[in-house]
């Protein structure tokens, strides 16, 4: 339970920082950190069986692939 509370506090801190303090340039990296925390702790992927971990990794890889392929096409035209 304390593990969850600490993570929750961290997430709220990061959200508030990204919102009020930190310049816009860091918004996406902070979002990535928060996403990582949610997946690892709240969704308990850190201690999960390898199969869900592989599924999450492949989904993330394909998500990034589609965004990168589309962005690269427009950016390098």
């Amino acid at each position, binding site marked *: 339970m304390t593990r*969850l509370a600490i993570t929750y506090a961290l997430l709220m801190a990061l959200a508030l920082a990204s919102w009020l303090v930190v310049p816009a340039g860091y918004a996406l990296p902070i*979002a990535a950190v928060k996403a990582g925390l949610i997946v690892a702790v*709240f969704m308990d992927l850190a201690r999960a069986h390898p199969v869900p971990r592989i*599924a999450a990794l492949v989904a993330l890889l394909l998500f990034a692939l589609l965004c990168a392929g589309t962005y690269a096409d427009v950016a390098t035209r």
Partner: protein
Amino acid sequence: MISGRAHALRITVWLVVASEGLLFAGLFALYAGYRAEYPRGFAEGVGLAVGWLGGTNTLVLLTSSFAMAAAIQAGPRAARRWLVGVLGLGGVFLGLKGAEWAIHIGDGLVPGAHYAGPHTPGTALFVTLYYAMTGLHALHLVAGLAMVAWARRREDPAVTECVGIYWHFVDLVWVVLWPLFYLLS
């Protein structure tokens, strides 16, 4: 080979999360492509957003995610109370989101032909993507609320855990959506 219902349910919910994640990937790819083509139009679009509503919604959803995680670890009686918290916070999120949409529609920020927002090239696309992505997210959130209500009645730890993972996924999508539409101006 771990057989057993909990393991099968956990794989299933992670596959659903992966599948829904890729449903959002298409929209994120469109956002990436159009942001590359119209950086100024998108920056101006982010300027239009109601900052405090977005921020508050982020804090609300993070709290609901914490409540859900607590419900998974808690005993049957405590879980039911945590899940009421999740339902409440989810409702608050939808309320704020509805208010936000009402404000924007009032300002004429409507996708498609009746768009009356700033005419910087790309801003109309930004608004259309805003409605598409937050709309799809809200749809998934409503589905999540229905599943949480069902899990609360079932009082089956395996079911609660799976619904929890799906709920965290909905929160995860919002965590990434929030900077795109509220911070990156």
